[in-house]
C-alpha cells in the first residue's frame, strides 16, 4: 500500500512542476541584457541604453539597442521591456557602463540598486565612459559591431594583465564600503575607429574625482599591490647623443608596506616594491652582459619608476583619494578607538609617503 502511496506522491511532485508556468524561461523568448549603460540626462534624470544580443541566426543584426529616459534605474527596465517582444532578463549582464557626468554626481545609489537585484551577480564589470556611455554603446565600430561584448572582452583582458586593476561590482562595492580605501574604475573612450581603455578613474564616496591615463596604469598597479604580469616602456632621456629607451616586460612585483607614527596624527607610509622583469628593448650604448652595467640600468629604471610613483602619490593626495589603500594600513596600525576618532580624509593629504623601488633584471632577451 505504501508503495502505491509513494507512487501517487511522486506523480504529484511531477504535477507540481506545472506551477512554475509563470517563471518559465524559453531561451528564444528571452532578451538577455548583456551590456547596460547609464548617463545623466536633463533634470537629473537617467538615460539608459540596453544592448541585447540577437540570437536569431538569420538576422543580420547582432544586437538590439533599447533606449529610455527615466527617473530611476529599475524604472528603465519596466519601460524598456515594452519596446521588445522578448522577455528582458538581467541574469546575463556582463558590463555596466556609466557616463562621466553621472559618475561625477555619484554612483553609490545606482550600484546599490544594481546589487539589490538577485539576478545581478558581483562579477559584473563596471566601467566609466569618457563622454556619453549610451553613445559609445550605440555606436557600431567597423572592427567590432557589438560594442558591448567588445568592451567586456577588452576589460577582462586588460585587467588580467594588470594594466588596469580588476574592477567588478564586487571590487567597487568592496572598496566603497571599506573605510581605508577608495574605489577605482577603468575608463573607456571612443577613439574614433574603436573603443579603447583610456585610463583609470578614481572615486571618493562613490563620486568621480580624478583620472590617470592608461599608460600610467602600471605605475599605479605597482603602488596598489603585487603584480604577476605587466609591461613598462621607460624613457631614460638622451645619453651620449642617443635616446635611451628601455622596455621592461614580464614584470613581477612584490609589495611590502609599513606605517610609521610620527605623532600628532601624522604618519609616514613606506611602499617597498621589489620588481623583477625582462628587458625586451634597450636602445642605449651599454653592454648589458656586464653585470655592473646591468646593475646601473636597474638603478636607472628603479629611479624612473620611483619618480613616477612619487608623482602619482602626490596627485592622489592632492585630490584626497586614497585608492592605494594607505588608510587600511594606518587603520590596522592603530587601536579601534584611535582610528574611529581620526578623520582620515583630513589626515590623508598630509601623510608622508616614501616609495622604495628595487629592480632586478632577470634576463635581457636573446641578443647581445
Amino acid at each position, binding site marked *: 500500500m505504501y508503495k502505491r502511496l509513494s507512487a501517487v506522491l511522486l506523480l504529484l511532485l511531477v504535477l507540481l512542476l506545472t506551477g512554475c508556468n509563470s517563471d518559465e524561461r524559453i531561451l528564444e523568448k528571452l532578451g538577455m541584457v548583456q551590456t547596460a549603460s547609464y548617463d545623466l540626462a536633463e533634470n537629473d534624470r537617467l538615460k539608459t541604453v540596453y544592448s541585447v544580443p540577437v540570437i536569431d541566426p538569420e538576422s543580420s543584426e547582432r544586437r538590439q539597442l533599447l533606449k529610455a529616459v527615466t527617473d530611476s534605474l529599475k524604472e528603465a527596465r519596466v519601460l524598456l521591456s515594452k519596446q521588445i517582444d522578448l522577455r528582458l532578463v538581467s541574469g546575463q549582464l556582463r558590463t555596466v557602463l556609466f557616463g562621466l557626468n553621472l559618475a561625477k554626481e555619484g554612483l553609490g545609489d545606482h550600484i546599490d540598486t544594481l546589487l539589490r537585484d538577485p*539576478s545581478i551577480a558581483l*562579477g559584473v564589470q563596471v566601467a566609466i565612459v569618457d563622454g556619453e556611455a549610451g553613445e559609445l554603446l550605440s555606436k557600431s565600430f567597423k572592427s567590432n559591431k557589438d560594442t558591448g561584448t567588445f568592451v567586456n572582452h577588452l576589460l577582462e583582458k586588460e585587467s588580467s594583465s594588470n594594466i588596469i586593476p580588476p574592477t567588478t561590482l564586487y571590487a567597487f*562595492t*568592496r572598496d566603497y564600503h*571599506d573605510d581605508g580605501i577608495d574605489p577605482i574604475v577603468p575608463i573607456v573612450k571612443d577613439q574614433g575607429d574603436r573603443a579603447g581603455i583610456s585610463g583609470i578613474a578614481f572615486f571618493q564616496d562613490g563620486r568621480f574625482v580624478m583620472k590617470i591615463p592608461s599608460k600610467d596604469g602600471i605605475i599605479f598597479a605597482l603602488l596598489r599591490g603585487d603584480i604577476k604580469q605587466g609591461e613598462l616602456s621607460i624613457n631614460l632621456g638622451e645619453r651620449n647623443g642617443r635616446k635611451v629607451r628601455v622596455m621592461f616586460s614580464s614584470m613581477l612585483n612584490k609589495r611590502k608596506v609599513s606605517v610609521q607614527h610620527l605623532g600628532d596624527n601624522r604618519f609616514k607610509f613606506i611602499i617597498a616594491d621589489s620588481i623583477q622583469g625582462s628587458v625586451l628593448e634597450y636602445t642605449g650604448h651599454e653592454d648589458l652582459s656586464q653585470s655592473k652595467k646591468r646593475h646601473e640600468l636597474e638603478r636607472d629604471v628603479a629611479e624612473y619608476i620611483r619618480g613616477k610613483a612619487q608623482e602619482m602619490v602626490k596627485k592622489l593626495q592632492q585630490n584626497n583619494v586614497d585608492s592605494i589603500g594607505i588608510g587600511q594600513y594606518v587603520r590596522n596600525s592603530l587601536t579601534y578607538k584611535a*582610528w574611529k576618532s581620526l578623520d582620515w580624509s583630513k589626515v590623508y593629504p598630509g601623510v608622508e609617503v616614501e616609495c622604495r623601488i628595487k629592480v632586478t633584471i632577470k634576463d635581457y632577451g636573446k641578443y647581445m
Partner: protein
Amino acid sequence: MMEKLSPFHVAVLVYMSQIGIVVFALPRQLADYFGTNGWLVLLPGLLVTSFNIYLITLVHRLGDGKSVFEIMERSIPKAVLYPVYLGLCSVWLIFGCMIGKKYVLLFQMIAFPTTNPMLFKMAVDVLLFLLIIKGIFTISKAATFFFWMTFWMYFLLFWFLPSFSWVRLTPFILQGGHDQVKGALELYTAYLGYELSILLFPYMDKSKKSLAAIYAGNAFLSLLYICLSLVCFGFFSFGQLKKLLFPLLDLLGYIQFPFIERLENMLYGFFLFLILMTVAMYWWGALEAMRRVIPKLKIPVLAFLLTVISYCISFIPKTLDQVNNWILYLGYAATGIAFGLPVLLIALLLLQGRRVSRV
C-alpha cells in the same frame, strides 16, 4: 540483531541536521552583531555546543543508553508528560517547517520570482514525508549519501583565496557590533540540530565512539563555519559584508568557470540536500515524541498528519521577514530544549539512581 548506527553515520547525521539555512546569512550576522573579526565568536560557539553535547553524553552514560522517553516515563506520570511531548513535537515540527519555508522563499527570490512558493514547499514536504516514514536508518543512509554528494562544495572556498586579503580583516577584535546578546541567541540557531542526537541513543552502538561521533559532527560543522566566515571577512570588506543579506549567495554568484558562469542557481539547488536532512531530522524528532502520545496510530498515518499540519502552518508567514521571526523565536525554544531536556534527564536519572540504591 537490531541494526545500529555506526559512529561515522552518527557524526554525519549530527552534522547534516545542524547545517541548514542559517549558513547563508551567518557571516553577515557575525559582522553585524559582533563587529570586526566576528568569526572569532564561532570558537566560544563550539565550546558551548560541546558543553551541551557533554550533557547529552552524560544522559547516555547515566541512563546506560536507554531511550530518553523511557527515562522520563519511569518517573513522571503520563498526564504530565503528554504536554511536554506535545511541546517538543510542536517546536521541532514547526522549526523544521520554517527552515524549509525559508529555503523555498530564497529559492523563489533567486530563481522563480513569481511562482507560488507553497508549490515548492509541497514538493519539499512530499520528499520529507517519504523520507521520515522510512525511519532513522534510512534517514541516516540518505544523510550519508547527501553528505558525499555535497562534499565537493567545500572546495569552492578555494576560489576566493586569490581575492582574499588579511588587511581587510583588521586587527580589531569584535569592535563596532551591537546587541551581542540577541546576536548570540540568534547565532546559536546555526548550531542547532545536535540536540536531536539525544533521541538516537536506542539506535546507536553503546560504545564511546558513538558519543565521540556527536562531538566530531559538531566540530566539523564549526570548522566549516569558521572557514566560510574567515573567507567572507577577508574577501568582502567589513562594511560590504554588513550590507549583504546573504553573503553565501553572493559568494556562489561570484564563481565563474571559463565554460560556465552564474552557477548559483545550480549550486543553491545542492543546498536542498542539506536543508532536507535538517528538516527531516527535526520532523523525525517530532514524530518520535508524538508516537509516545499516540502509540496506536501507524507511523505513516501519524507522519502524514504531522506533514499536513506543518504544511498548513507554513501558510501563515508570507514574507522572508516573517519567516525569519518565526525561526528566531522557535530557535529560542529549540535552544531551551537543547539545554533543558538533558538537564531534566540528568536530574531524573540521578533521582532514579538514588531510589534504586536505597532499595
